[in-house]
């Protein structure tokens, strides 16, 4: 049979459409998802296609290319993560009990939350640092590629029905205060105290294309690199390596690993079960 006429499974056509759509997003808007793990990107794009009632990913591409107002909506599908405050409480407990005693020796601190999404981890760390008496000397840098996520993070407003889980996590993390000290309830929403973001800079930053963020004592980037392919993971880990101060700490997601990175040698295990690493002396 003529190769051009041979049968092609529908998903193979979708694979072509995905590649073209990601290329279009990059060329038109400089958002680069070309090195994101494909299986998850595909689920998200198909969800977007369904949401917008479009017949195909090609139709979705056509819409987003010609209508800039579609971009933030599509970014919402491609990037937004549903997280929790103090997600994986044992991670925050390890920070509290094992990392912060080292940070205590510095007169001033910089912490980078890379891929902060709607800010749950930013407020978690701010509360943790306040409880441990380090908040006032710390500058937090919260970055994401999605402007809507950054706005949500900066607002610090979460649905009240999520608070029970947040509170439970906070207690399991060894919290010394009550989470309710930090928010006011208002019409089904929990509005977090703006003093928690007094030392937080929210900023647009891409691990795909942007440069080093200087001299951090702690970088927390959890469940972000899991969406990257190997080369892009390597780029991100290299960025973290170069952004950490000497002996700085890096925390990643519980199912992520530096093991396969070519920068693995630059890091030592610090709390291996919580995926907290420490930058080796260069």
């Amino acid at each position, binding site marked *: 049979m003529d190769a051009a006429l041979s049968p092609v499974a529908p998903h193979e056509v979708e694979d072509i459409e995905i590649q073209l759509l990601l290329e279009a997003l990059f060329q038109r808007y400089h958002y680069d998802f070309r090195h994101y793990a*494909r299986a998850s990107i595909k689920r998200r794009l198909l969800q977007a296609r369904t949401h917008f009632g479009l017949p195909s990913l090609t139709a979705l591409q056509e819409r987003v290319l010609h209508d800039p107002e579609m971009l933030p909506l599509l970014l919402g599908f491609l990037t937004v993560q549903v997280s929790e405050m103090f997600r994986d409480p044992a991670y925050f407990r390890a920070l509290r009990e094992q990392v912060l005693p080292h940070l205590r020796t510095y007169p001033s601190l910089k912490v980078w939350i890379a891929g902060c999404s709607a800010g749950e981890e930013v407020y978690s760390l701010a509360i943790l640092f306040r409880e441990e008496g380090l908040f006032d000397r710390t500058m937090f840098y919260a970055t994401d590629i999605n402007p809507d996520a950054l706005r949500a993070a900066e607002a610090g407003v979460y649905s009240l029905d999520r608070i029970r889980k947040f509170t439970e996590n906070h207690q399991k993390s060894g919290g010394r205060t009550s989470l309710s000290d930090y928010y006011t309830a208002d019409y089904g929403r929990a509005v977090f105290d703006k003093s928690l973001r007094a030392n937080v800079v929210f900023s647009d930053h891409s691990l795909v294309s942007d440069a080093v963020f200087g001299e951090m004592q702690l970088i927390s980037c959890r469940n972000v690199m899991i969406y990257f392919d190997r080369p892009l993971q390597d780029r991100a880990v290299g960025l973290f390596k170069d952004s950490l101060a000497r002996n700085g700490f890096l925390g990643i997601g519980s199912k992520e690993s530096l093991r396969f990175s070519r920068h693995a040698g630059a890091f030592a295990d610090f709390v291996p079960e919580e995926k907290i690493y420490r930058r080796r002396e260069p």
Partner: protein
Amino acid sequence: MTADPARALVIGASAGGVQALLAILPELPADFPLPVLIVLHVPADRSNVLAPLFASKCALTVKEAEDKEPTQPGVVYFAPSDYHLLVEADGALALSSDELVNYSRPSIDVLFESAADAYGAGLVGLVLTGANEDGAAGLKAVAAAGGLTFVEDPASAYARPMPEAALRACPAAQVMSLARIPEVLKGLGQA
């Protein structure tokens, strides 16, 4: 007509799933020729006890799936709790912490649909006992890609809703009792 040779087996289970898998996995021989990818709904804390529990009872290697890990025949991979398990086009595994699907993470549909893309007609999907409807859309995707579809007989399953939903979505699936499943699986991938 000869069927496509099987290249991977995906299994989804929920309520009663540990017992069901204990009746299946220990029966598979060490030279079982397919990778086995499993989503079993368990409470979302981090004590991932499934792989150790089954490893001690199985001839096959049993482990928790790792992100970007290539799959190997004769190895059983469990989705870690609180992460979706997916298969990339090159057959490597991928994890995600995307939102819940069918109130579940890991979700059976997420595994089955991505595996159907990756393996096409070489995929075998098996839906076992469960009290929800996760896996129904996934099994339908396996069938649409030309793969083999098996469902535990709802009449004798610990919980009926999941196998029943799978059969509604995928009426052509072969229904079999738990006791017969190991024998059928042992016949897979044989020339």
